[in-house]
């Protein structure tokens, strides 16, 4: 993909690092501090409805939009997540098979993959485009590609946010466990004033040579998260890196992004 766009906003939430600034300064919250996301992009009612992952998405989105100074009412939001609201799904399955109790309609309505994007649009009063997508470990690349498609066809700014909650241990008992993370970028047309960086998404390739930007130095739990590539991108731009960065940590199809100023 040869579309080059500006990155004008960055945001991140990791348990222990509630925003990108705290991550950049390695200013981790003490272990006894509540490490839950605040859901800053939501209004009070929808913050209550959002899952922990949804709130982490809200925090990364709020931070990225503030940095880019874009309008929540009109800016499209693309939410990428590999397993989505899997925790809510497990809760529903437990109701069905373990407790043999009726489902909560409130839980069912926020178990859909687009719960976070829907709650964001309601909170921000955004009546335009929003979407929610998934592509396993290629979700960061897919989210950026969807955003590039919008920018290339005339959209002024797009928020791309990727998040996955902690891996559901019962369903992934033989896979490495991962912790929740959320990371967001704001894309705008090439040359937008105040750009932090410019990026192009390259075609996928199994050949991993030529990667010049090291991934973020996350704890192992974060590095297994399918959205680690988006957090690596946010980290690389925050560090002022240029060059080529992998958008997955080896489990995807080999998408990479080229960063330049």
């Amino acid at each position: 993909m040869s579309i080059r766009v500006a990155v004008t906003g960055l945001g991140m939430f990791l348990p222990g690092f509630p925003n990108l600034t705290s991550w950049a300064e390695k200013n981790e919250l003490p272990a006894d501090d509540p490490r839950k996301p605040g859901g800053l992009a939501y209004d009070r009612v929808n913050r209550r409805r959002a899952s922990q992952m949804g709130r982490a998405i809200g925090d990364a989105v709020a931070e990225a939009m503030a940095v880019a100074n874009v309008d929540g009412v009109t800016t499209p939001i693309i939410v990428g997540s590999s397993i989505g609201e899997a925790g809510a799904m497990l809760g529903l399955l437990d109701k069905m098979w373990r407790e043999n109790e009726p489902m909560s309609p409130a839980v069912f309505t926020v178990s859909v993959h687009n719960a976070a994007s829907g709650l964001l649009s309601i909170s921000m009063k955004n009546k335009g485009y929003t979407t929610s997508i998934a592509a396993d470990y290629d979700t960061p690349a897919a989210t950026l590609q969807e955003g590039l498609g919008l920018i290339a066809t005339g959209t002024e700014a797009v928020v791309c946010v990727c998040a996955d909650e902690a891996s559901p241990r019962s369903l992934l008992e033989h896979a490495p466990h991962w912790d929740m993370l959320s990371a967001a970028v704001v894309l705008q047309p090439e040359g937008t004033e105040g750009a932090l960086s410019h990026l192009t998404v390259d075609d996928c390739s199994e050949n991993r040579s030529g990667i010049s930007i090291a991934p973020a130095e996350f704890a192992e739990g974060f590095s297994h998260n399918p959205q680690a590539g988006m957090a690596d991108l946010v980290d690389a731009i925050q560090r002022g890196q240029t060059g080529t960065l992998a958008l997955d940590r080896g489990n995807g199809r080999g998408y990479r992004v080229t960063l330049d100023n």
Partner: protein
Amino acid sequence: MRPLLVTGYSMLSALGRGRQQHLDALATGTTGLGPSPIPLEFATATGDVKIELPELPTDMLPWSTRLARMAAALLQDIDEPLRRAREKWRPERIAILLGTSTAGAETTEVAYRQYVEGGKFPRDYDFQRQHTFGAVLTVVRKLTGCNGPSWMASTACTSSGKTFATAQRLIAAGVIDAAIVGGIDTLCTMTLQGFNSLQALDRVACRPFRSARSGISIGEGGSFALVEREGDARVLIEGIGETSDAYHISAPHPQGLGAQAAMKDALVAAGRKPEDIDHVNAHGTGTHLNDTAEANAIKVVLGTDVPCVSTKAYTGHTLGAAAALEMAFSACAIEEGFLPPAIGDGDIDPKIEVKIPTEKTTGKFERVLSNSFAFGGNNVSLLVGAP
């Protein structure tokens, strides 16, 4: 917008497999809805796919789920246009953009029940190959050899409508030359119980726009379409509207403002006027709120003379697959020159002020709006046109 060329499409639902079986049912007003194959403690009708689905090749058996086998069937039924597309475009220039709401939930809920009851998952259960949204993408890539950008849209009941919009943008931007778009979803207990908890299921086959309507009937199936930069189009996607209600997570805006905006945006994108629309394939779920809001929206945007039919009375609500399946029904109306009768027990609700034809309508239908609305207040309207 630059029109999107649909060069082939396939259909799978409670009405059968393939275009002809669907046309036969639509022409005769025959519903595919019936008793649920899934044991339930409440009454409801469902639209299950009754045909035997093709098994995946041996080396792909770890990915074999009902959802994946549905995808395999739908791919087989666009094999000819897909073969031509692969001769014309490089594999990395053919995207796979699909939509689903449930992904592999049907497989996981069966496996999880065994886990709860016996402490172990079935030996062949694999969450990453059978549940995740990306699992079916892997299957479609392997079966087709297409290697372009690929992802699942999952915006509940608009999911597969979104895939047409993404393909249109990526082709317009020069990123791809073609795409397999569409959607699939399977019946599962969790979905049925969830909609039951919302008191949104009709106890009999759903009755869109009828006075006695009391909810939806869930269906399963899907539709894939091949869309290309250039080629022999069967129909065109002339315009697409994508909006949000920004109102409520599960209820539509009472006046259908988001739906109005989606339809208006589709008209504007196509450069068409309301009087250019010959038919609406309505979202028409059969709930009081949805049908009333949508009818209001259609009346505001198109007036009251355009015939509106909800084909969910035939197939049930196929959730993430519905928008693609109903695009295919819209294409059938254009290609075959008839609209199916709006079926369902009881009289049309007198408060529904748009035209709901209860008899088969023949004529020339050149432009059809196909509406899909979803949880999260997500709306997609596709304007399907004759080439």
